[in-house]
């Protein structure tokens, strides 16, 4: 990274969290959290339940005051100057709540009155963006969870925010809805919005985010581009061979190849379920695959399949937290 680009990225910072700590009662819930979110990126906030994700998010939107540290949105201190800072923030904290005895439209009108410069036209715009125009004049009590989620996003976008905060946004959505949401968030980021997404689902962060902060027990363990964090870990290759015993001995003789015996510990359940009983799991660099295939074939072993598996954030996480479970 050149010096110029560092300076530029500093200018782009929409949300900056510096050494934030929070004590509730006598217990420190958040020990030390520091990270920046920049314009046009999707930033993941990953951690198991109870790690302090929601507490941190509540501090970002001034529902909770930090015990120490500062949170700035577009240069304004959220906890001291909330009228300025929160103008730039749209959020859904935990569930997308709405007044169920009002219609979707009345809910949006309600929130529009709490901010300057939002007219009918803007309300109609966000309704169109989340494609809720069919049911917008129905009572929210008749909405499905997916529709409430969309209404929540509509109210978050209402004030033309620069920062969108979504707490576990895919909770309760079906696979189709999750896919749609992912595309939608990407589109918003491409338009220049900074999107902050929390999740305990690692695959989701991997699919959605540009950068990620990993939090556990109230501490940020790592912040960085998702790909960079992933490539620090070696890749896995799954071999499906006609002769398991011979194949295994050839594989284990190769330099830079490690045969994994306890696959359950390093791979996602979904991958384990998808691979054959006889499959051999190795940790290796993918550039050796071609030469190993040639060796296997010349030794008379049929290669029925070779799969590359990117390490998941789960493994990354397990490595960093030394085995604290993610649930």
């Amino acid at each position, binding site marked *: 990274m050149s010096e110029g680009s560092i300076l530029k990225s500093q200018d782009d910072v929409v949300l900056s969290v510096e050494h934030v700590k929070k004590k*509730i009662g006598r217990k420190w819930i958040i020990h030390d959290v520091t990270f920046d979110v920049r314009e046009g990126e999707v930033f993941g906030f990953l951690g198991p339940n109870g790690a302090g994700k929601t507490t941190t998010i*509540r501090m970002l*939107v*001034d*529902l*909770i*005051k930090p015990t120490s540290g500062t949170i700035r949105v577009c240069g304004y201190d959220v906890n001291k100057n*909330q*009228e*300025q*800072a*929160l*103008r730039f*923030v749209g*959020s859904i*904290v*935990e*569930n997308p*709540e*709405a*007044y*169920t*005895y*009002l219609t979707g439209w*009345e809910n949006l009108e*309600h*929130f529009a*009155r*709490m*901010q*300057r410069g939002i007219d009918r036209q803007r309300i109609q715009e966000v309704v169109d963006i989340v494609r809720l125009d069919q049911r917008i004049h129905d009572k929210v009590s008749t909405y499905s969870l997916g529709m409430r989620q969309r209404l929540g996003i509509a*109210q978050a976008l209402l*004030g033309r925010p620069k920062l969108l905060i979504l707490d576990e946004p895919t909770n309760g959505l079906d696979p189709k809805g999750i896919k749609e949401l992912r595309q939608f968030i990407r589109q918003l980021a491409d338009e220049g919005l900074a999107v902050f997404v929390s999740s305990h689902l690692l695959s989701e962060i991997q699919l959605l985010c540009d950068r990620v902060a990993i939090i556990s027990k109230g501490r940020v363990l790592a912040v960085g581009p998702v790909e960079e964090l992933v490539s620090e870990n070696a890749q896995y290759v799954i071999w499906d061979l006609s002769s398991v015993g011979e194949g295994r001995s050839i594989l284990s003789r190769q330099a830079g190849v490690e045969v994994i015996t306890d696959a359950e510990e390093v791979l996602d359940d979904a991958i384990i379920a998808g691979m054959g009983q006889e499959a051999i799991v190795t940790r290796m660099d993918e550039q050796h695959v071609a030469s190993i295939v040639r060796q296997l074939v010349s030794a008379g072993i049929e290669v029925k399949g070779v799969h590359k598996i990117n390490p998941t954030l789960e493994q990354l996480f397990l490595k960093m937290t030394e085995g604290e479970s993610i649930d």
Partner: protein
Amino acid sequence: MINLLPLVKNETIKIIKKKRFYVVLLILVVLVPMFTYAQMRSAERTRDKFHGDWRLEVQQQITDNENSLSSDRVPDEWKKFRKIFIQQLQYYLDHDVNPNEPNGVTFTREFLDNSISLFIPLLVMAIASDIVSGERTSGTIKMLLTRPVKRWKVLLSKLIALVMYNSLIVVATVIITYLISGAVFGYKGFTIPVFTGFLIRGSEVDMSAVHAVPQWEYLLMQAGLAWFVSLVVGVLAFMVSVLVRSTAASIVVMMAALIAGSILTNMASAWNSAKYLFMVNLQLTNYLSGTPAPIEGMSLTFSLIVLTVWGAAAIAISFLVFTKRDILN
């Protein structure tokens, strides 16, 4: 910076759409006919007894009360009440004014007397107890407080909405009561003179300041006092609603306080410092009609000051807590 008007509009809409105010009106429309019917039956009975002569009826009341004064079984405190009551009745008799003349306005006046300390505050509580805790129960408080609006403004808009609905409830009570009871007793009675200004000194009534006012004026004074009482109770319920997360809990707390007040009023005359509790100071209309206060040393000014202090403290606590507190769920 956002000004308060749109925020107050929001709160007003929410109370209407949540059907809280309709419930209040419905309660009035259901209960007032019941009271009217009960009043009608008792009016019929006395008319039969005294053949329509109200002077006989008042004379009978005076005689009954005088007789009970000589009884040893009647406690001294009750005797004090009755002596004063007799003096007042005599005053009405001397001035040829029927204190019990049945008509819509008189019924409304009596209804306000009876509902000022419990019934009207209860109606206001139906709105006040839910106004903050309702947002917490539904989780919408998070949406409300993550707007670029200072917290005190959010709370102030709720308080203003409460004051408006409080006024509306008192007015609605008077109008609905008058309309419904008038259908039975007639809509006349605005100009009937009502005596006020009785000053109670020990067991004697000081009549020097007594003067007659037209009944409509008396009714206005009552409504003003009822407005103030229900406002103070409403503000206290508002505070409890800020402090407690569930609406049910905040209603129970306030109900308990009000009922404790009506029990104390009946038995606390020996416990002098109880007069500083807000709930024994709610029967403000008694000062107009000259009914002795439950505890010595209480007067209209005293009660107004006590209620004001309680109300101001409740508002201060509400704002302190609401603007400082972490919203954890």
